[in-house]
């Protein structure tokens, strides 16, 4: 009996989560990386605490961006290396379902997890509690968008050695507006002005990417699979 697209989606998500949870230490890595980068900065700034609060949104967002990005590299690569990507491509489901499921699962274990720990980091960086709602919402939208942009980049670089650096080269420029508006929203929330405009923009960006990126990523993957 043929398997429907929704069922296939669920199965691939389960597969990805299963692979992640098989190595709980690695599951925690993007998180820990996020924590480390956010602590590195204050160190690099030689403890000028007054500066710290002003730059908190920037540090938070850059750390989120880099830690999603680092793990994005393996989105398709490990499957391509051991030949399972070919098997997935031949499963009769259409590559888009696979791509959507894999990207969504990736977001669950990195982006969503990162959003969950961000209050801790935010507190450490001196972001006031009143700004947390905006921070969480903007990070949620931002990381989801980023996962999608990253899926395109990962699809394009999957066949290449040391593709991870090329991946950042491709994704980071695309992610710049995200960073500007995301950090901007948090910044405004901290200073108490309305962040609604920036949040709307982030939401629009997210919807836009989520509708178009799956197809772009599928095309990218199909190109590199040949």
């Amino acid at each position, binding site marked *: 009996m043929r398997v429907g697209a929704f069922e296939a989606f669920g199965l691939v998500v389960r597969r990805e989560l299963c692979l992640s949870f098989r190595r709980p230490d690695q599951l925690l890595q993007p998180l820990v990386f996020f924590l480390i980068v956010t602590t590195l900065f204050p160190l690099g700034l030689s403890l000028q605490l007054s500066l710290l609060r002003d730059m908190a949104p920037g540090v938070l967002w850059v750390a989120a961006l880099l830690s999603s990005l680092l793990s994005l590299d393996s989105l398709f690569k490990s499957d391509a290396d051991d030949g399972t990507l070919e098997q997935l491509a031949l499963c009769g489901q259409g590559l888009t379902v696979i791509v959507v499921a894999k990207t969504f699962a990736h977001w669950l274990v990195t982006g969503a997890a990162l959003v969950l720990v961000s209050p801790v980091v935010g507190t450490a960086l001196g972001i006031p509690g009143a700004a947390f709602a905006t921070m969480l919402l903007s990070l949620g939208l931002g990381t989801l968008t980023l996962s999608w942009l990253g899926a395109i980049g990962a699809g394009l*670089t999957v066949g290449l050695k040391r593709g991870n650096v*090329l991946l950042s*080269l*491709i994704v980071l*420029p*695309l992610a710049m507006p995200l960073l*500007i508006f995301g950090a901007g929203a948090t910044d405004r929330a901290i200073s108490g002005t309305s962040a609604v405009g920036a949040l709307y923009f982030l939401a629009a960006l997210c919807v836009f990417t989520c509708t178009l990126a799956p197809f772009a990523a599928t*095309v990218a993957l199909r*190109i590199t699979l040949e």
Partner: protein
Amino acid sequence: MWTWFYKLASPPYVYAAAAALAPWFLGLAAITVGYGLVDGLVYAPPDYQQGDAFRIIYVHAPSAWLSLFAYTSMALAGAIALVWRIKMGHAVAAASAPIGASFTVLALVTGSLWGRPMWGTYWAWDPRLTSELILLFLYVGVMSLRSAFEDPSRGDRAAALLGIVGLVNVPIIHYSVTWWNSLHQGATVAKLGKPPMPGSMLWPLLSMLLGFMLFYGAVLCMRLRGEVLNRERQAKWVREAIKS
């Protein structure tokens, strides 16, 4: 209609057409740029605020526009090649990328040289400036993605896709001055209604723009010929063309 289109896009035809067009483009470019330079640098009146420093505009603005124009043409050529499987589209995109990147560098350099007297700094993290820098990164990304593939046809298609995706940056660069309050000058030339620039300053600028476009066309044709030859090196017509 379609067959005609495909014939137009066949390598030998493109090769010949590029060879025929290049000298025309180059000649016209020399005339327009020559007029623009002489009129702009010598005859146009100095700006009432900036004095002679404003004359950098005759290089800065055209090269900035061309950096966007070249990107857009590269992405469109790639899109056409990707959708209709026309190989010459990839050749056009591949030939276009380095030229566009050079214009971007030129815009960045002239801009920061201009920024020194105007804003007191070579570089500021202003939206227009930053998004132009991102454009440079995109060019670099597209070029290195293309060359990163062992198999040229895959590299072509991957680069075309990235080019299309990166197209979102072009309106961002253009509207950045209006969306964010910016250090950078707003739209001066293309503003609807009466341009706030006197004709004596405007005409040389428009001439320079036209000249830069022609120059882009000329270099594109020349690079395209090399690109086509390299891509078609196995084909019979290339061997015959080289022999004769």
